[in-house]
């Protein structure tokens, strides 16, 4: 059996750091080949080398048996390699058609001539059943259609080897199913597919073979059909992992945070992105807000924490109405917030660890005296957090946070938000982009808060996280709460139906 892609002994270094260490990766013609690994294992780096975005220090690449040099995406394209990136590479104010032809435009004397391109795109769209509206603007179409645009970009360029970088992260279960069908269809038409993922279920469903990377090293390639999920995950993580978190039973206490009829209207689309949402979070309970990205969860959290004005409704913290209170007042009243975007909101990246450690508390008398910062107290406090939360960095409390790893940056936020003894912890996708070890650690911290009698409001897009960590689940769909569920009584499939909006168990009027 011949290989269409052979990457032999690839080594890629950033400074002294070996992102890829002697990695070998081979894809057969007409297969779906999964590339499995944790965040930071080197999957994206390996694909970037194949796609010409990075050049490897060592190793060779063979395409259809011939050694090649790939210096940029143009070279990759000429070799008929295409890629759907994890974060779509689409210009928001371009039309679908413009986005597809960009870089390979049909022209006449320098002027754009879209007619030929339009015909080819529509033919491909029909042939592969990739529904698109060629004249819609990217900012107006769904994530699912954006992904179809990305796939059409590759087909328009007549690519035969297609790379899908974590393509399911942003899709609904139904869209995922459709994508799987599309991938199978593409393979039937003779294309070869590399499917980057860390979701074993999906790999099981669609892939023929699976190669595993761990910390930049090649671990092995297995046949998917004959290998169990447990075996694959052990290859990925390097040890047996416990899929189930140990949780003691805690009986929820009184209500800490109550949200009543919260409505937020988007300034751009004039739609209610959060529509009449009500729920209660109680002591000793992890309440999870589940849903597919973009169904109003972010806005809901912004509304609760005060980052975004609300149009209607009430927010009550420990019996006190905080609806009109400032962010600072809510924070002082006991609301901790582990934000969705740790670089944008959670940290001042150019401040050092100490300065970030007191971002929510610098004004308290323990850290300042008549407006003058008590530098000694700040330093001691940072050292305490570093020890207690095992935060690792180059220069201890003097490290600039920008230079720290993602996992340790997140630990700084967790430490800061949990150490100020909050009443309620609002945690939004706290494990995004982290490896299994860090994820486990953060889950344990959240459960410890719950065990200590705090209320935890967890917003998550990861189904596994939702099922494993939470004590109660509310599902958001198009700004509304459509279900209030007990994780012990439902299956992942059921949850998926609620998330996709095809099932609902809560009426809008009823209080959750």
């Amino acid at each position, binding site marked *: 059996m011949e290989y269409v892609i052979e990457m032999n002994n690839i080594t890629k270094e950033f*400074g*002294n*750091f070996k992102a890829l260490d002697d990695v070998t990766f081979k894809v057969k013609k007409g297969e779906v080949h999964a590339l499995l690994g944790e965040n930071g294992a080197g999957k994206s780096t390996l694909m970037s080398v194949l796609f010409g975005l990075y050049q490897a220090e060592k190793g060779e690449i063979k395409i259809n048996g011939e050694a090649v040099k790939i210096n940029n995406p143009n070279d990759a394209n000429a070799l008929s390699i295409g890629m759907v990136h994890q974060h779509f590479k689409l210009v928001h104010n371009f039309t679908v058609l413009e986005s597809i032809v960009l870089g390979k435009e049909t022209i006449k004397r320098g002027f754009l001539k879209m007619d030929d391109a339009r015909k080819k795109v529509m033919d491909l769209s029909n042939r592969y059943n990739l529904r698109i509206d060629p004249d819609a603007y990217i900012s107006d179409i769904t994530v699912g259609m954006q992904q179809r645009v990305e796939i059409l970009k590759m087909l328009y360029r007549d690519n035969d080897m297609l790379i899908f970088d974590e393509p399911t992260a942003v899709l609904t279960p139904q869209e995922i199913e459709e994508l799987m069908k599309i991938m199978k269809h593409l393979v039937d038409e003779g294309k070869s597919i590399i499917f980057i993922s860390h979701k074993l279920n999906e790999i099981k469903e669609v892939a023929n073979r699976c190669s595993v990377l761990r910390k930049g090293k090649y671990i092995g390639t297995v046949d998917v059909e004959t290998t169990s999920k447990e075996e694959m995950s052990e290859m990925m993580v390097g040890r047996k992992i416990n899929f189930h978190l140990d949780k003691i039973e805690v009986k929820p206490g009184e209500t800490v945070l109550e949200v009543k009829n919260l409505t937020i209207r988007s300034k751009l689309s004039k739609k209610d992105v959060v529509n009449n949402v009500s729920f209660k979070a109680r002591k000793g309970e992890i309440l999870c807000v589940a849903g597919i990205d973009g169904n109003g969860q972010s806005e809901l959290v912004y509304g609760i*924490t*005060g*980052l975004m004005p609300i149009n209607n409704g009430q927010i009550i913290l420990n019996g006190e109405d905080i609806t009109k209170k*400032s*962010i*600072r*007042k*809510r*924070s002082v009243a006991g609301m901790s*917030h582990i*934000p969705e975007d740790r670089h*944008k*909101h*959670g*940290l*001042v*990246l*150019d*401040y050092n660890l100490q*300065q970030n450690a007191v*971002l*929510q508390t*610098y*004004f308290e008398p323990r850290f*300042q005296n008549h*407006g*003058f*910062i008590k530098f000694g107290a700040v330093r001691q406090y940072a050292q305490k957090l570093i020890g207690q939360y095992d935060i*690792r*960095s*180059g*220069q*201890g409390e*003097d*490290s*600039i946070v920008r*230079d*720290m*790893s993602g996992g*340790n940056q997140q630990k700084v936020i967790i430490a800061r938000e949990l150490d100020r003894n909050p009443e309620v912890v609002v945690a939004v996708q706290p494990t995004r982009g982290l490896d299994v070890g860090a994820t486990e650690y953060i889950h344990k911290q959240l459960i410890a808060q719950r065990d200590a009698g705090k209320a935890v409001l967890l917003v998550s897009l990861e189904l596994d996280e939702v099922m494993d960590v939470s004590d109660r689940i509310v599902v958001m769909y198009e700004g509304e709460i459509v279900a209030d569920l007990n994780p012990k009584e439902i299956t992942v499939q059921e949850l998926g139906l609620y998330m996709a909006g095809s099932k609902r168990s809560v009426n809008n009027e009823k209080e959750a």
Partner: protein
Amino acid sequence: MKKKHNLLQSKGTSSFFSVIMAIVAGLLFGFVILLISNYKNAFPALITIIKGGFTNGTSGLGQVLYMATPIIMTGLSVGFAFKTGLFNIGASGQFTTGAFVAVYIGIKWTFLPSGIHWIVALLGAIIAGALWGMVPGILKALANVNEVITSIMMNYIGIYLVNMLIVKSIYDPLKNQTESVPKSAIIPRGGLEQLFDVKNMNIGIFIAIFAVILIYIVLSKTTFGYELKACGHSPSASQYAGINDKRNIILSMVIAGALAGLGGGLLYLSGSGKYMQVIDILAPEGFNGISVALLGMSNPIGILFAGLFIAHIKVGGNNIQLYNYSAEIIDIIIAVIIYCGAFSLLFKNLIHKLTRRNKLEKEEGR
């Protein structure tokens, strides 16, 4: 602990080194221009520029301090706004309005006793500059209008408004400038004029140094400074932390404006025979302030030295007119210094990032 100290030191020295590199590049470029225009005198002219204020004994030094005072203030103004993430290109207009109010109070409010008169006039300058800086601040905070454009507009509005008000109130039509400021409104000399052998020396330089120290303390020792810098680095994270970013943007521009306004007062109440002219030209002190702030890397202490350095070579620039060179060569040199500084800073950061990352990975490798 010792290790950390060394690191901080090396960071300081490397930024100092990068500034020196930029200065050398600027001087070299200036030298080439001098060579091209008239190669015979180029070398002595270069030496004269470098010697700057040291050429004419204490009077040269006095001249440097006199010229440095207003540009330290405008530099402080620009640098302070930089710390909050704002580019105050409007220091010129704030300087001009401050100068006008100071001169106006100086000429009109003669009922004030002589020990107080000049102080009130300077306070007036501070308030006028603050108001002028407040407008772009408010527009930025409340309507998110780019402060660069608005403060440039405020520069032009300021110059035309001040011209109009001068003509209406304190105009000397013969000389097309303001009337003279009476003695009681002139900043005290404090004996410095004898020490430096320059008659326009006064305690203004000490006021500027006091402002430098004050701003240094505010920025690096107080919670207010902590908030301002947080807004400068990351407006979104400051908002998340409950810091009132809108208030801080406005306050930052108000303070920046006040500093530039005070600079205007200090210059035109110095009794040096310099008058506000009625011409449609923006005050160059405001733009020199940008150079001073960039060269001083927005650090108040750095700004003090940058202001002295630029005044120093400007004195040198005046002296090379003896060799028939135009003094504008100094502005060319400064522009080149700023241009090179823009990326020498970058190289420095790059080196730091690389060394730090290596360290990080070593310590994190597990």
